[in-house]
């Protein structure tokens, strides 16, 4: 513990694929899949990056209010997302676009949230992927409670691979300072809950570097809570897959929580509203660009001979098609109707809200019968184009 810095790279981290695309052995973790599986990871990562780029472009063109980019974190997300068993359940932050892809969530749903169409438009039970949580760290407690429920359902340690399940809760280096994350660690440890805490340490919480959050490497925090922690190269999809697979299995078999610190880097801004040039050096970005998660897999597949040019070209085509469909779908998303929203507040609607809804509906309807002027005012309120000749068409 000579180095007090949480950002230090002198700490041992699990790596199975070097930035140059060389496979490595590790005494504890190994990747036993074949090259076809690695090609699958490659495809997922390229698609994730393409979705991310398209969403960023859509935001720049005014079609999204905001986007939180996952650029540079594709290996951490795809490696962990692909390690999930078919029963496992995910609690994401708002940046897990690659995990969403792995679980089959239509990326258009992710855009809906950032376009202001809804607050989470997918069926979380169907995809086993809970809604994005915007507030930092709050979802780690929900994940822990869900895992406590899984244990009560008798779905831990039965030995039946069709029954046993685990929960994975995502969070970031900034969230590790939140009380909720620390309380989640305590509850999970105290009840031996079947959960994996997956921390993507991307080095930055908006403008604050990891040193502001932690004076020790984050994975070491786990020992203080009484469960194992491991730091993996978060840009190495094979290491992330291996470590997550092991941690999920540990949870499913009733051996309790694990903290995985995926040591990665946020290549983009915190969100499209952020300007990282104000607080970090370009050198740092260059340093991490050499560790790109996708480049190293491509280098490996090329060297091993499994990745023919046609494969890479096909993935590029698929990514372009996906981006085009995403763009078209985004522009076609229907705006929500505020009158519908009144019905979502409660499972059992209250008379008071019904009354508010009805009054507003009457107010809106009142504009349909009165003068053109009033109609024009309403059109302005709705942001609709105004008729060129207000006295004319009707």
């Amino acid at each position: 513990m000579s180095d007090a810095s949480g950002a230090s790279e002198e700490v041992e981290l699990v790596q199975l694929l070097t930035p140059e695309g060389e496979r490595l052995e590790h005494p504890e973790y190994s990747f036993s899949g074949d090259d076809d599986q690695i090609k699958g990871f490659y495809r997922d990562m390229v698609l994730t990056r393409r979705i991310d780029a398209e969403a960023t472009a859509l935001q720049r063109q005014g079609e999204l209010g905001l986007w939180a980019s996952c650029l540079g974190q594709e290996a951490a997300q795809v490696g962990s997302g692909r390690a999930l068993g078919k029963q496992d359940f995910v609690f994401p932050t708002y940046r897990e676009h690659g995990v969403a892809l792995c679980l089959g969530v239509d990326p258009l749903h992710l855009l809906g949230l950032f376009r202001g169409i809804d607050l989470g438009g997918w069926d979380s039970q169907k995809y086993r992927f809970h809604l994005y949580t915007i507030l930092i760290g709050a979802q780690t407690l929900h994940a822990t409670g869900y895992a406590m429920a899984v244990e009560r359902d008798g779905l831990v340690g039965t030995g039946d691979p069709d029954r046993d399940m685990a929960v994975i809760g995502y969070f970031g280096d900034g969230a590790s300072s939140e009380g909720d994350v620390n309380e989640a660690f305590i509850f999970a440890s105290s009840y031996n809950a079947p959960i994996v805490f997956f921390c993507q340490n991307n080095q930055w919480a908006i403008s604050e570097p990891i040193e502001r959050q932690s004076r020790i490497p984050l994975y070491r925090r786990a020992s203080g809570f009484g469960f194992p922690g491991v730091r993996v190269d978060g840009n190495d999809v094979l290491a992330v897959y291996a470590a997550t697979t092991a941690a999920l299995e540990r949870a499913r078999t009733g051996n309790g929580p694990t903290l995985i610190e995926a040591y990665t880097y946020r290549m983009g801004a915190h969100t499209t509203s952020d300007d990282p040039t104000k607080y970090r050096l370009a050198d740092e970005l260059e340093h991490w660009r050499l560790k790109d998660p996708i480049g190293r897999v491509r280098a490996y597949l090329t060297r091993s001979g499994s990745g023919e040019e046609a494969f890479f070209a096909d993935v590029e085509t698929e990514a372009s098609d996906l981006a085009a469909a995403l763009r078209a779908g985004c522009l076609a998303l229907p705006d929500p109707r505020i009158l519908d929203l009144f019905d979502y507040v409660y499972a059992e609607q209250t008379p008071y809200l019904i009354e508010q809804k009805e009054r507003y509906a009457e107010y809106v309807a009142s504009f349909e019968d009165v003068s053109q002027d009033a109609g024009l005012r309403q059109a302005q309120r709705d942001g609709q184009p105004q008729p060129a000749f207000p006295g004319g068409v009707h």
Partner: protein
Amino acid sequence: MTTMTMAKALNAALRRALEADPKVVIAGQDVGKLGGVFRVTEGLQKDFGEHRVVDSPLAESGIVGTALGMALRGYRPVCEIQFDGFVFPAFDQIVTQVAKMHFRSSGRLPVPLVIRIPYGGGIGAVEHHSESPEAYFCHTTGLKVVTCSNPADAYWMIQQAIASDDPIIFLEPKRRYHERAEVDERETPPPLHSARIVRPGTDVTLVAYGPMVKTCLDAAEAAIQDGHDLEVIDLRTLSPLDMAVVDESVQKTGRVVTVHEAQLNLGLGAELAARITEQCFYSLEAPVLRVAGFDTPYPPSRVEEEYLPDLDRVLDMVDRSLAY
């Protein structure tokens, strides 16, 4: 028909809920072996096990946040927050997560979660043990807020709250925990979100809830000597409010005094005054008047009897109302 205290009535009702539905789980600090600091959960862990009646780590946000996670998997958790003043570490989870989950998911994710909070003063406690935080929760849409004033309501309302698919803040007036009354375990209770006239009268309407209902009933008895016939309404449900009962009463009496322990400024009385004015303007003979705790923090206990509304302050406000 059995005579029991409010604490025992809650205990019996929680037992019945645990028996009726295997998805009901009780969680909180000291709720297991100890049976809660007010003994509301006494004996339940012994009979239903540590998986159903769970001693939680000492972390309120964790209690509520993990309960929400359990609710997302179909459980019906009943959390106990040990004292009113301890709820604030959980306030973030309650306001940003519990209250909004159904809305955020466009109605796909109900949160059948009950958060029990012993509240209010009058027990000679130290700081943070005597507060009335109900207005914070009533202001938070997505939550429902109810409070019982007597053992029979406690018995039925907690079971109805557990059966509800919406998150409910269940406020228990701690200074009434040990008052006894008859509970008929076979009756059909009124709906959870309904107010009730507990004493009919013709001159002035007193609107109260929780610990102040008894204070108002005592005041109404005393007012007979002055020749005044007071009607007392027990709101029972603070969000949503059951204004039909209040409006009908005010249209009859033309005068209304609201009574609560919580501070005056933006308390429930303010919302009641606004709603009554909107609905009953032409029936009112006097402005809506409010009796409440002062806008100081809750005081040291040696002066809490002066801080808390009592029979005399209620009657003084009744006299002011009648003077218009």
